[in-house]
């Protein structure tokens, strides 16, 4: 639900988790531009390094909202953690050079999805979005993803592993994607393009308990989020400038970044989630029996 309910009294304090990368630019812009304040929210931003690891903090109440990817929320829902999605942080980018990408060394002869057959491909976790998306992308061009050898490797170690020839290709997100290109690797494609273009991939979540107690805060948060996403999507330069201010990163690195994320700017719907879930089911990452889980994942304030 996206219906705004105006808070009447002073601003409500909330704490929102952010990653030390640019996926959060929208929230930063929203805070900078006073959008959250206009909706009666006093936002504190807390940096986190991993979505799943921020869940305990959310449960302990030190965070009000955090962001996790769809498979993580599916797992949390299956395990009854009590999380609900309240909005989209990012949605899949519909172009061939996006926020995420698969890179390969030029001498490996990997030029498109089909060439990944039988190759060693690095992903951050074996049961994760990238595996599903790359598999689906391969299937979309008629290749057989079951021949791929998936290798679990954390993002920061991926480039060294590529350089050492330990991997044929790997899935990376910005800014590592740009860094890999700088280091001479070539983009094979954007795994979101053929699969989840326009579909939310990263979600803002809170606990069901909190949402039930504070529906108006959630609503205000959703309102602000979408407005912020709107601005960020429309002004990439502003997004970059915000990233320069909001992170400690070397501005020179940021200037090189091509391919930005697409931020959520519309109310989240069950259908959106279902699209993602279907991709996962098709890729064999999710059991058919869990395919109707979308309803329980979302907050319908």
């Amino acid at each position: 639900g996206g219906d705004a309910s105006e808070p009447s009294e002073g601003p409500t304090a909330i704490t929102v988790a952010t990653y030390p990368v640019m996926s959060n630019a929208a929230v930063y812009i929203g805070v900078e531009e006073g959008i959250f304040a206009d909706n009666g929210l006093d936002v504190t931003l807390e940096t986190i390094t991993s979505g799943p690891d921020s869940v305990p903090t959310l449960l302990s109440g030190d965070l009000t909202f955090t962001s996790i990817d769809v498979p993580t929320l599916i797992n949390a829902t299956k395990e009854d953690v009590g999380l609900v999605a309240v909005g989209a942080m990012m949605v899949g980018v519909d172009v061939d050079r996006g926020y995420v990408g698969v890179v390969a060394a030029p001498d490996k002869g990997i030029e498109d999805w089909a060439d990944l057959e039988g190759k060693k491909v690095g992903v951050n976790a074996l049961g994760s979005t990238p595996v599903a998306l790359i598999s689906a992308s391969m299937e979309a061009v008629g290749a057989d993803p079951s021949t791929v050898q998936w290798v679990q490797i954390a993002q920061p170690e991926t480039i060294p592993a590529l350089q050492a020839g330990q991997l044929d290709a790997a899935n990376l997100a910005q800014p590592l994607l740009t860094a890999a290109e700088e280091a001479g690797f070539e983009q094979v494609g954007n795994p979101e393009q053929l699969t989840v273009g326009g579909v939310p991939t990263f979600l803002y979540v809170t606990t069901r308990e909190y949402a039930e107690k504070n529906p108006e805060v959630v609503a205000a948060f959703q309102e602000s989020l979408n407005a912020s996403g709107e601005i960020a999507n429309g002004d990439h330069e502003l997004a970059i400038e915000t990233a320069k201010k909001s992170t400690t990163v070397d501005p020179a690195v940021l200037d090189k970044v091509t391919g930005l994320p697409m931020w959520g700017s519309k109310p989240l719907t069950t259908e959106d989630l279902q699209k993602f879930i279907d991709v996962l089911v098709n890729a064999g990452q999710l059991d058919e029996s869990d395919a109707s889980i979308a309803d329980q994942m979302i907050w319908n304030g």
Partner: protein
Amino acid sequence: MKAFRNGVSLLAIEIWLPLLLVVLWWTVSEYVNSLYFPPLRVIMEAFAENWLVPDKALSNLVPSLQLIIVAYSLAVVAGIVFGTTLGLVRPLERAVRPIVEAMRAVPGVALLPLFIVLFGIDQPMRILLVAFGAMWPVLLNTLDGVRGVEPTLLDMTRSYRVGRVRRLFQVILKSAGPQIFAGARISLAVTLIIMVVAETVGADGGVGYFLMTAKSEFRISAMWSAMVALGILGYILNIIFRIAERYVLRWHRLQQARLERTS
């Protein structure tokens, strides 16, 4: 006490406290309503499901055991070799001390890319990474033990012209034995701990892999069951270790038995 000391009562002494705590845990956890602290009952169900079914258990235990055995052996050997070298050649030790101390304090995040570039992303890299981290307790203990040898004994070996090799193996290392064993015991636990981290890189099985995956998938009782498995693994390894220690340090145990009386 002495009459007490048959196998059964030894076991009794060894398990009364853990048993008590388990009962306590079992009872208290039934009433704790927290996702991350499931009832012990549930944990044990998850344990039975994941670690008592041979197929499932083996796919996780085999890679881990292989890693533990090889990495731990390497760590102990390397620790003893380097520790002895540095302990015997004092000027060398003093000269490289800053480097050694700095190296010990390098966080794993910096080592991982290095190890990947050097050794790949497969089992050998994990083994070396674990061995590197687990080597330090043995190394430091060996270093200190080698230096603490009774000076009169060293004089004795010099005066009787006992060659270097024999002096090393029959006097210095034996004298340092108790301390080396203390280090090796710590290394054993460190091996298991680093293993968990190492198994997040390139692995597709192993206790650590299972644990970290369960954690990120919110399968909390499965995660706890992995910790229980690690604990049991640690305990079993420590028993093997203790048997070796009892055998090698027999003299020390007998000699120190005299201490118990008064202290």
